[in-house]
């Protein structure tokens, strides 16, 4: 399609000047430019997630909680906006690499037959406590971003327990930063490399803002779930009949956010068609209010704190190891310097005695004699630090709402006394 539109202005240029015009990007209609952007010069700015993909991720993560799961994201990337329109689960059972690839290829083929976006735009992973910074994650994401078709792949991280307890969806989109990719290519994570690339625990991954965008039909569905037509009148009508035991039961079920379908009544009402006149099917109301206002933080705070203290231990261990290496390195350097100095001194002494000085020891020889200790890879400790940072940040952030809720409870208590 793009080439058709482009063909015309180019041929017209040819006819006019009777010579091949240079490729002129201004001849391309402006709205087509992003489509033709093969080199991906437009950086990703935002990730748009369709409720369908969102629900699929949430469902998959919830069903196998607390085991972390992952899956593929399907969608489109246009003009710096990554649209995630569908997703599918990847089996968690260990299988051969080939099986996995086959599964994904087959799945994408099947989905293409029913017009689902068939290009992979990344993958998703669920996490339990929020410490998702693991080596495999970085490796998989690096392989996604290295493939030519997946330059703009993202990884979506969904935190099930946080979503459930906080009553607020926890979904974050990440990409590996250029600094990390550069170092990963060289596979060297020494202190010097890190400092050169400016890579710290905070910028291994770049976060992208996540938007949720639904189609008009999906919006209609949400409206239907939230407030089915007629449910208000029905509730009111039931209220007017105080004798009806049903009213109380129904109202309670409605208030419980659970869906209500009282089709036993509709059976008697409809006789004319096979399909019944639709009844208020469900009630979503304000779904998360009661979740959000829930006081208890559950056991998750305990688990988070445990994880934090474990990570701190590891962090200290890593730091000690690094110090050990540093000391070892200093020792080697020291003895090397001493050797050179001694040689210089003895040469000076020889010269004073009028003897021929000993030959200078070449650098390579020196290196061989005093082999510098290789620095252990800093990646592990970097990830550890990143996780620690993530966890403590999460806990700090969760304290704000907890405080607010406490003062609410106090207000309630004072007003009742």
């Amino acid at each position, binding site marked *: 399609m793009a080439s058709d539109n482009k063909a015309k202005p180019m041929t017209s240029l040819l006819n006019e000047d009777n010579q091949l015009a240079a490729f002129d990007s201004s001849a391309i209609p402006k709205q087509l430019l992003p489509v033709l952007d093969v080199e991906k010069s437009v950086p990703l700015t935002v990730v*748009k997630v369709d*409720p369908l993909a*969102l*629900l699929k991720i*949430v*469902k998959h993560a919830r069903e196998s909680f607390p085991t972390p799961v992952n*899956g593929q994201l399907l969608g489109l990337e246009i003009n710096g906006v990554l649209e995630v*329109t569908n997703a*599918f*689960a*990847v089996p968690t*059972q260990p299988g051969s690499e080939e099986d996995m690839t086959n599964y994904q290829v*087959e799945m994408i083929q099947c989905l293409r*037959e*029913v017009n689902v976006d068939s290009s992979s735009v990344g993958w998703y992973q669920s996490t339990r406590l929020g410490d998702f910074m693991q080596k495999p994650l970085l490796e998989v994401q690096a392989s996604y971003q290295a493939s030519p078709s997946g330059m703009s792949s993202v990884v979506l991280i969904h935190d099930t327990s946080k*979503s459930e307890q906080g009553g*607020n*969806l926890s979904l974050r989109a990440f990409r590996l930063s250029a600094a990390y990719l550069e170092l990963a290519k060289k596979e060297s994570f020494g202190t010097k490399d890190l*400092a050169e690339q400016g890579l710290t*625990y905070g910028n291994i991954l770049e976060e992208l*803002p996540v938007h*949720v*965008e639904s*189609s008009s039909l999906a*919006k*209609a*569905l*949400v409206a239907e*779930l939230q407030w089915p037509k007629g449910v208000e009148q029905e509730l009111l009508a039931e209220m007017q009949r105080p004798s009806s035991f049903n*009213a109380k039961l129904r109202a309670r079920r409605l208030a419980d*956010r*659970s*869906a*209500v*379908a009282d089709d036993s009544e509709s059976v008697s009402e409809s006789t004319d*068609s*096979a*399909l*019944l006149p*639709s009844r208020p*099917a469900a009630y*979503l109301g304000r*779904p*998360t*209010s009661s*979740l959000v*206002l829930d006081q208890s933080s559950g056991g998750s*705070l305990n688990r988070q*704190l445990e994880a*934090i203290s474990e990570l701190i231990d590891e*962090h200290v261990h890593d730091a000690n190891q690094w110090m050990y290496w540093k000391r070892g390195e200093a020792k080697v350097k020291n003895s090397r310097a001493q050797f050179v100095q001694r040689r210089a001194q003895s040469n000076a002494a020889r010269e004073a005695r009028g003897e021929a000085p000993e030959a200078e020891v070449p650098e390579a020889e020196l290196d061989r004699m005093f082999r510098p200790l290789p620095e252990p890879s800093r990646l592990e400790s970097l990830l550890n630090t990143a996780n*620690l940072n993530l966890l*403590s940040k999460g806990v700090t952030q969760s*304290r704000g*709402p*907890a405080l*607010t809720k*406490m003062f609410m409870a106090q207000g*309630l*208590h004072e007003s009742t006394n």
Partner: protein
Amino acid sequence: MLNLNLPTLASSIVKSGATTMATTSTQQCYVHPVVLFSVLDHYLRRNDNQERVIGTLLGVRSEDGRVVEIRSCFAVPHFETEDQVEVDMEHHRSMFALHKKASAREQIVGWYATGSKLSKYAALIQDFYSREAAPFSAVHLVMDTELTDGQLSIKCLQGSPIGAGAHPENCMFLPLPYELQYPDAELTALQAAADSKDSEEGYAVLISDMEQLENSIEELKAMLQRVTAYVQGVCKGEEKPNNVIGKYLMDMLAVVPKIDSKQFSTLFQTHLQDILMVAYLTNLTRAQLNIADQLQRIV
């Protein structure tokens, strides 16, 4: 490809008598919201000139088969003409096999279709799915994507054989009571979808926990104000009193726990200290990490 012909064409590819199989009838149905969104997505991505889309419903059943939980679904291409319907069986089979790998527990429980009324081939397709879902009866979910009466109605049906001779085309669809399931995690996702509906830009930005809490408190305040206004109205005699509402209010007030003031303040203080302590420690940890990072650069 499975070709299902209308009986007027006299060809009987479909073996009759299948519906007489002793199927346990389904009595209650639970639907997961992801199914509804999948159906809508499939409908939006249908081919040109295609009026309805169909697909397979997957889920789990209780042991006796009376309660069905529809957990997911996938689209199946099909082709309708005046007197014949084709369902892409191969696609159905391979998709099911693929789904089985990722979530082994989910079985075929029925099928879905869109449209305001049943297609004339519904009975034939229902017969096919009944055999797939055997030994239980198949559930048929219909979504009115044409928005008749400005409503997106959702119905669950089950087929029941009718007439003297057992022919697959003789089938009556009976309504099946169903409920939508909203697990906590999904509610948060639906809330995000609802926010995207209400926002002016047409999309929702994910907000922080604190903002979410603020919204909830605002809502709670609005609700309390509404109730207060109503109660005052009743007291002044402006509103008509309603015993049922009064009872609800009574129930609600009774739920508020009565705690001794002293006890409450001790509880409050200790909890407050805990929270502040945790916040302090985690902040300290982060500060330490930052210092360590900065120091390492100097080294």
